[in-house]
């Protein structure tokens, strides 16, 4: 169970990084 949660957290963090830095709409991106 712990192992599953740790891995899930890791994957979630990776998804969050990708989303936040590349996919999320930002002021800069929308203005462009």
């Amino acid at each position, binding site marked *: 169970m712990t192992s599953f949660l740790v891995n899930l957290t*890791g994957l979630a963090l990776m998804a969050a*990084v990708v989303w*936040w*830095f590349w996919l*999320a709409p930002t002021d*800069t991106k929308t203005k462009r």
Partner: protein
Amino acid sequence: MDSTTANTKNRLSIAGATCQGCARKIRVALEPLVDDSAAVDVNIEQKTVTLPPGIDPTDAARRITEAGFPAQILSAEPTVAKSCCASNTTPSCSSGKGDADEAEAPVQKLASAASNSNANNDCNDGIQLAVTGATCASCVSTIEKALKSVSGVTHAHMNLADNTASASGQADAQALISAIESAGYGASVIDDPDAADERRQQQDRKRYRSLLVKMAVSLSLGLGMMIWGMGFGSMTVDPGNQTTWINLGILTLGVMIATGSHFFTSAWKAFVHHNANMDTLVALGTGTAWIYSMVVAVFPEALPEMARHVYFEASAMIIGLINLGQALELRAKGKTSEAVRRLLDLRAKTARVIRDGQEQDLPIEQVRKGDQIRVRPGEQLPVDGVVREGNTRIDESMLTGEPMPVSKAEGDEVSAGTLNTRGSIVYEATRVGSDTALAQIIRLVKKAQGSKPSIGRLADKISSVFVPSVMLIAIVAALAWYNLGPDPVIAHMMVAATTVLIIACPCALGLATPMSVMVGVGKAAEYGALIRQGEALQTAGKINLVILDKTGTITAGKPAVTQVHVVVEGDESHLLALAAGLEQHSEHPLAYAIMEKVRQDTIQPADITGFDSLNGKGVAGEYNGDTLRLGNRRWLEDEGLNVTPLDQAAQSITDNAGTPLFVALGTRVLGVIGVADAIKSDSRAAIERLHQAGIKVMMVTGDVDATAKAICASAGIDDYRAEVLPEDKADVVNDMRKKGYTVAMVGDGINDAPALAAADVGFAIGTGTDVAIESAAITLMRGSLHGVPDAIEISRATVKNIHQNLFGAFIYNSLGIPIAAGLLYPVWGILLSPIIAGAAMSMSSVTVVTNANRLRLFKTSHNVDNFAKQEQNQ
């Protein structure tokens, strides 16, 4: 016909024209070029000729010179205002050329070209901003993106080396500042670049001291904890030392806030704007280590016994080491702009101004245009101006790189920053403050130092995705350790993730290109080569064909005595003395050449009486009761003299593009003097240097084939294109480019401008015309061709330096990150400590900056000191 010629009224200076008859002769000489010779404006008083638009000035100058009035191209008056200037009312933009009544000195020409270039900048490069908070390549791409997002911005550029950004287009300054601020950085408009520089230097000094203090505090704590841990047990938490570790954890947090808050605030600002930078990695790395350690200290039971290790010392030491790295980087960065600082140091602080007959020392800021300024020997000139009283020799080497002092007399232009070596002069201030040639040169160098060659764009692209990618790698490494690693997996995954975050260094990537460009451009300026674009620096290194214009580039552009042949051996000095005795009364261009020759050889002109000038024939006078004649062959033959003994000598002169002038005393022909546009003394050596660098050299000229061939042979040029019309020079450049050459064009005339623009890199000789200087990417402030190999050698060295830096930064990251992730652990059991990673990260950027600084020691293959000695011996 090129646009320059088509749209401009060109002005030529003429010598020897004294009456309306001369004016008529000039108009007649120009008849083949113009439909209506009345459209040619000949001003006898000012000794200028203004050509109607569409006339090639070089051709016109040649025809006027052939008619007996040495002509030189002065300037071009645009008949159609530049679109930029049409809407711009700044003085720099409206600086017309109409007031250029006198031939400008090289430095002044450069200043006006720089001024025009700046005028264009005002229109296109728009606003310069000082940026704070940018630390790495990721910041550069974030700031550039933010600026480009502002509507109306067409181009944006951030320079990490001096923390300035520029945006071109129609944007409002406030909108640009808001865009940068909303990206998490600070910005302010640079109104006065000099003041901004000074402010930045002060801030840098303050920041340097502050970083050193912070480094000392955090390293003391980190080292203390390390020693304590090693000396009094271990870094693991047990019930006996739990409270101590909790207290130490709180103390570490305090130190982290006090000495590393800038990492955390910058990381946060970037994060909320969906950006990540170097500080993000530092904050995440040290933050992860501290949180993990605090969890261990507060809840040791929650973790297996093997994982109860704390890393407080790592957090403190990483912050300390990165602060140290930033301090060292700041110090090294300061040294890179030494070239500019040396130019800034040339500015005099005060001027001895004569007002109402009183001499007074005034601060330089109070000197006004039109003030009379006295400069004594050994003093620096405070502003630009025109000599009104006295004569002297001025050392202009600081601006032009020209080692020999230049003679200045009444009416000559002088420049701020140059050194008065001999006499005392009074001169009138014509350009003050930021309009001086020196100020313009400083602006030009700074602008080029901030520009980025294409090689740097690859690094920018990579670094814009670098930090988030490193974050992903850190998570993958942590999960890999958790799932595959040995016990204690929790501690191992934390160490691996922290080390990956800390070792990755985008700052090395960000600094690799701008640091080298800054030093390279500064170095070139020291050698008298002004590089106007960073891109030219990169391209100049790849040049494999140099095309040279002949007149004014390979040759001096003015007639000089090249050969002296006498009938009776050893009679040369006497022949020259006789010729000079006659020619001292003449204003013919060929007379100037002979007078210059006797001045150089310190020969006293013979005493001649009854001087007479015979148009189209020559000059005559009385010497010791005999008739002395100096002139062309036909005239002497008509007078019944036999010149056949000198046939071979005369042929040799004409073969070398010279004019033979026969000298006869009574019925005896004494000798023949060859006058030609001589090859500059150092052209051959400079061409040889180009050959040594593996570069092919070609010449383009309007001369006939035989003359071109002779010049190529004596200058050591590989190939030539003869009888090339001025407007066809650009076609020659394009042809050679199509053949696969990377072409540099070197020229000085208005007619060279299209060819200079067409070449991969255009080199304008600084003594040339404004238009040529504006069309070229590199300006050689010294009239010597040595500037070309100098600039090429410096470019090659700079590009090599950039490659080394980029290679180092990439290799560092591509080796460092896998090692930090623990790739070597399965084989050798090596897992890096986060402290080692912190030190490595700091060292990587320090290494890049130090390597760039190494360029400052670069010397070209041309030894300027030897050159100076050579000149003195001549």
